[in-house]
């Protein structure tokens, strides 16, 4: 939160005097969100219901989960294009394990546990691979993760031969369908993840190191921070988050489709991070901002769909709103 609210000095021309505007800009994402909600309350039928909240929260979950990992990666000055493909890999792997395609497991609880842990870990390992390329070979993050963006989905498709895997395994699907206390399980997971990441980013040595690496790699190395390890870690975390998100998606759908799970997720997640106010150049990050950014984008999507805006036009509107929200964010910084 601190980054959203802390007044930050201007680097230049900014101080042209529009202070009210500067104030508005500081809370850009929040304002955008409030305006959207107000619009919906006025125009969208059946908006002020618990179920609407439910629908939006469950739909935004996967983006947020992925975007949390993405925020950390971006904070180090990197970017992770492979998240969608990693979702597909974990989404493809889990059912293969708990359905016993790879090896038969007698106890379904055991099978599910093994499946969840393995597939998240495998995604994490692929993330580690990204980190390895970035830190060891100094390959630029966009390209390093482009490799798995291309190959990763291929791997998932090869694993399943492109076939849909369908299942009804409540022991597994709680992650997408259960509602303890009426709150969807994935919303709880998302909330815990957001809180944990925000806390870690601002209150731990690890978080501080992430920001330092993003802010000045050379200086961080000389200050004794293990830059390579930090990078390995953030990409691995991003992989783990993607793996988890992959499981959530397939659980909700009762099916896993390696071709489609996580398709286009990287752009959604990056957009959420940016709309939330994190600089793509690294060195600064706000996890809560990312949450708000994701919610904004989700609400835009909901609003356009619910009001019957044709898809093509919706794209244009969405573009405008993303650009506007990020522009608002920029104002107090410039």
């Amino acid at each position, binding site marked *: 939160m601190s980054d959203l609210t802390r007044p930050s000095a201007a680097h*230049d021309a900014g101080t042209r005097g529009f202070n009210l505007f500067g104030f508005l800009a500081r809370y850009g994402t929040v304002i955008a969100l409030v305006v959207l909600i107000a619009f919906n309350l006025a125009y969208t039928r059946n908006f002020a219901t618990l179920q609407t909240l439910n629908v939006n929260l469950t739909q935004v979950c996967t983006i947020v989960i992925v975007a949390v990992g993405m925020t950390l990666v971006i904070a180090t000055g990197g970017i992770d294009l492979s998240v969608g493909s990693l979702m597909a890999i974990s989404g493809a792997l889990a059912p293969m394990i708990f359905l016993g395609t790879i090896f038969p497991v007698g106890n379904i609880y055991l099978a599910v546990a093994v499946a969840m842990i393995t597939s998240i870990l495998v995604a994490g390992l692929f993330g580690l691979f990204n980190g390895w390329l970035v830190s060891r070979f100094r390959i630029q993050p966009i390209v390093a993760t482009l490799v798995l963006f291309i190959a990763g989905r291929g791997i998932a498709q090869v694993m399943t031969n492109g076939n849909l895997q369908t299942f009804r395994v409540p022991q597994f699907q709680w992650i997408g369908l259960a509602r303890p206390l009426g709150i969807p399980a994935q919303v709880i997971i998302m909330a815990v993840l957001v809180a944990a990441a925000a806390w870690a980013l601002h209150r731990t040595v690890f978080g501080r190191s992430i920001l330092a690496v993003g802010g000045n790699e050379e200086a961080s190395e000389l200050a004794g921070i293990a830059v390579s390890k930090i990078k390995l870690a953030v990409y691995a975390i991003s992989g783990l988050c993607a793996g988890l998100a992959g499981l959530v998606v397939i659980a909700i759908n009762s099916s896993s489709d390696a071709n489609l799970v996580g398709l286009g997720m990287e752009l959604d997640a990056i957009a959420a991070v940016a709309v939330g106010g994190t600089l793509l150049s690294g060195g600064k990050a706000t996890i809560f901002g990312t949450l708000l950014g994701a919610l904004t984008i989700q609400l835009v999507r909901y609003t356009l769909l619910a009001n019957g805006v044709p898809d093509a036009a919706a794209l244009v509107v969405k573009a405008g709103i993303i650009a506007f929200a990020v522009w608002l964010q920029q104002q107090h910084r410039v």
Partner: protein
Amino acid sequence: MTAQPDPAALLLDMRDIQKRFAGIPALADASLQVGPGEVHALIGQNGAGKSTLIKVLTGYYRRDAGQVLFEQKPFEVGSPHQAQVSGISTIYQEINLVPLRSVTENICLGRENRRRGLLDWRAMHAEAERLLSRFSMHIDVRHPLSDFNTATQQMVAIARAIGFSARLVIMDEPTSSLDEREVSVLFSVIRQLKVEGVSVLFVSHKLDELYEVCDRVTIMRDGRTVRSAAMSDIGRLELVAAMLGRDVAAVEGHATAFGERDRSRIGDVLFAAQGLAAGQSVRDVTFDVRRGEIAGFAGLLGAGRTETARLVFGADRLKAGEMTMEGASYRPARAADAIAAGLGFCTEDRKAEGIVPEMTVAENITLALLPKISRNGILNEARQREIVERFIRELGIKCSGPNQKVRELSGGNQQKVLLARWLAMNPKLLILDEPTRGIDVGAKGEIQRLIRTLADDGLGVLMISSELEEVLEGADRIFVLREGESVAELEGQATSEEDVLAAMAHGSSAEGTAA
């Protein structure tokens, strides 16, 4: 305000300039008058607003209030480009060139030679070589700028600025990374400019230099112009007093503030290096540092002092040689190993290797200290605050608070933040590469005193400085490096400047330092 030049003939007339950053004034009421063909000094403490005033003038920042007349006409520029076109050429405080591009490009971009509408590379290379030769620099101008060391880069920046046929050349601390030889070359060029009728605005913290080349001086304090006078009308003490805002008596005579040292407090050998070598720049360096001792490295630019320090700190990989720390063999693979062994390293290039600009003062100070102010990886905020506040106080870091971003600090205060980072670590051996670069006289004294106090308490210090005076007075022993080899070991304080210079220069031709 004594002896104003004729207002009608002023080249530059800035009055009542104000500039605020996020509400905090950096310039409250600054004025500056520069006559034609005049070398004008602009001085003030770190954070007084010198660089800001310059950036306001060149259109990098927009001023909040005030008027600027240039050549008697109102001067409104929106960008450094327009300022350049209007006849103001600037060397900014941090070297602002493009390291990836060739020297030629860095010098010639913005006023390219053309033939039939296309760039004439041949002519541009020749032009770059011609400009550099004015500074007796002979380097391969086709190489990327990053192939050269800081000093060479600084000279390139100067060559670039001189190359524009400007009416006013602004130099913001151009000499902070130059050695005496290069400084004297620069000064001869400045004098030549003066003959050509070009005015120079010269910022420096080194008073000797000001007295050597400047005609007039403007003194700033806390964003205001407090005095403007002919250089000959104002004595050193008066100058410093005006700058610091104190009585003349209070700033009575010091060149450096190391003072006399009590040799008896120097202990046994803390660190020793034998025959260090790596690559071209370090070939055979042997030296040692004792507990409680300040050891100095002297040498010309490119002698390999910085590179040696990087080797000791594990920032670069050692090819040959042995090191011991507290008697035990020491071979750091990375900086973290060095830190664990009790070393600290304050680098010379604070922008690239020092500060994390987007982070706060507090976060920067504690950057190397993270393991010590945390438990189980969780930061102890209270402990951090305590340390940070102590160092802000002790070093007199001028900032709005521990939460101000470091990039918003003036150059000198950034340097203090870096010093604080390493001091806070409480190291056994502290390597200081140009520790007082860009630091104002007041703070410089404080830092030097601090270094001595630390040494008196048993800290070993390895100090690299291009200011011979600083090494001579501060160091207990001086190791002279030449072309990557340690060629002499001299007693500090007892040694004369001539001895060191002789050792430094003997047989070496410290011209261009192409890789």
